[in-house]
């Protein structure tokens, strides 16, 4: 409104005020800071030398071939995928049910319930890891794939809950009511009307839960058992041993996998819109 009233010269000057000096420089420096380590890592993973030094010794992909042929690592990848699938499925189903419950009329203990759902995100992961370990030891659950899956299901729930809840909130309540008016049972109403509409939320939530399970290091470190090492724990023990070109290659592969997953989930999200 004011634009039309003031002369053009004045408008231009005012637009210039939006730029705050120095912010661009800081932003560019910050982007560099974010990306230089990653780029350095990728470059060094192609170094041919046997030494673990930062020197460039010729281009080679043999460390990647080494790593991909490593049976222990492949086993760790398989374990990670199994654990993530199981935890995501359980977590997403439970989270969907919880989101359905909280999207109705507000009930008495709702804030307490929502705090509880958020609890796994608040508790520091090392505390959660220790507590879960102690619990498994006391109850006598043998540590292995199943123990990690159980531990991961817990924090899969809040990750899946948030997008599903958001999606449910945007839903028109009249739709569910209409279904009920037409003599549909609650289950039919859910399956035919609600579920298809909240499906993007469920997919997004499942993806979040899956990625968080794949990336978890600390909790897995404490509750993994004999032969049940997941990929992050395996890489963690390699990284602790020291810098080697093999670790560079593994790290780059891990990074590419995470980025690929993120891109897939982003594209899926766009498609569902």
């Amino acid at each position, binding site marked *: 409104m004011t634009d039309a009233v003031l002369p053009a010269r004045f408008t231009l000057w005012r637009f210039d005020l939006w730029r705050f000096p120095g912010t661009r420089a800081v932003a560019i420096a910050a982007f560099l800071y974010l990306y230089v380590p990653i780029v350095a890592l990728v470059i060094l993973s192609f170094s041919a030398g*046997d*030494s*673990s*030094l930062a020197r460039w010794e010729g281009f080679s992909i043999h460390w990647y071939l080494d790593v991909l042929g490593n049976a*222990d690592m492949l*086993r760790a990848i398989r374990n990670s995928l*199994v654990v993530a*699938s*199981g935890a995501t*499925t*359980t977590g997403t189903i439970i989270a969907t049910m919880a989101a359905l419950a909280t999207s109705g009329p507000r009930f008495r203990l709702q804030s307490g319930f929502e705090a509880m759902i958020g609890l796994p995100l608040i508790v520091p992961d090392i505390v959660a890891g220790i507590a879960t*370990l102690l619990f*498994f*030891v006391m109850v006598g*659950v*043998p*540590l*292995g*794939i*199943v*123990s990690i899956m159980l531990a991961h299901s817990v924090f899969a729930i809040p990750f899946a809950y948030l997008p599903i809840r958001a999606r449910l909130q945007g839903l028109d309540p009249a739709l569910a009511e209409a279904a009920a008016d037409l003599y549909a049972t609650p289950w039919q109403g859910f399956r035919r009307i609600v*579920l*298809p509409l909240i*499906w993007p939320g469920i997919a997004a939530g499942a993806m979040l839960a899956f990625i968080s399970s794949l990336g978890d290091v600390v909790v897995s470190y404490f509750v993994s*058992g*004999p*032969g049940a*090492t997941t990929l992050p724990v395996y890489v963690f*023990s390699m990284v*602790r*041993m*020291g*810098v*080697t070109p093999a670790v560079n290659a593994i790290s780059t592969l891990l990074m590419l996998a995470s980025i690929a997953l993120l891109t897939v989930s982003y594209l899926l999200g766009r498609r569902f819109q």
Partner: protein
Amino acid sequence: MRRIVMAIAAAAALSIPAAGVTASAAEEKELLLFNWSNYMSPDLLKRFEAETGIKVTLDTYDTNESMLSKLQAGGAGYDVVVPTGPTLQQMIKDGLVLKVDAGTFSNYKSVKKPFDNPSFDPGRAYSVPYMWGTTGLVYDTAKVAGGKIDDSWKELFEPRQDFVGKIGMLKDMGEVITAAEYYLGLDQCTEKAEDGQKILELLEKQKPAVKVYNAEGTVDRVASGDVAMELMWNGSFHRAHAKLSSIVYIYPKEGLNLWGDNLAVPKGAKHIENAKLFLNFMMDPKNAAEASNYTGYNNAISGAEQHLKEDLRNDAAFNTPEAMVPRFRPLQLCSKAALDLREKIWTRLLR
């Protein structure tokens, strides 16, 4: 849409039993090995798999104490662990390892004396020998004027300026405290509080000069120059030396640890027969030599010498010169009071 829900339900239903089915089917031909990190030749494991069809999974730890801790923390289920002599002795006492009667195994005859009948496991009822070695002092000759230092622990605990801030120590209670004890002329298994006080003071005075306490990654940090002086196992030295030729291994005159690692089967192992096969396999001369060639440590098997690599045989850290042998101090299992004292010193040092 419905199909997608079905697909997910099916995947969920399959993923859990799948984990179970593979486990039970593979239980017959599997071996879960729990070993020190960087301490097992992958080629050797492949050879074992080729010969027996048993698939080996390797998990690692950094010290005996971590291994014990993991076994308590629901880590039962490992088939083979690798404790050092005194730790094995304690585990036998506590009933944490199974009797395998290795003395009856086919390859037992290849074991050199005195490794066939050690004090910590008479007659090898519970274990077979793996690698043995020493823990000495390593430094980079290029980093000190004149390229030479005294062969004494003094250089580690009261370091010269050239090495201050560039020292690496093993984060291993037994190794660090015994080295301090040798330097101070104290008994390896002392229980006296005043002795403990002296050790603690020595270590605390040294602490500002130490760059890192870590029992893993010694080879890389020495080879890359991250540290210029290191309390190091002789096999690790051998491997680091291959990458950085200016480093040297010292046998300190006050005495240094002589230790032996062993393969044992912990309580709760699920593949006991496979474990026994593995233990027997490791007593074969060719296999023991392969392990030595990879790790850089000595083995306890006669007939393995001919298969050892040339550079290993020529390494003074591996092939101890006669004159240095009297400096060996075999590691002993100390009394509970002595071990408690060590714990107190260690926790105070490393908070």
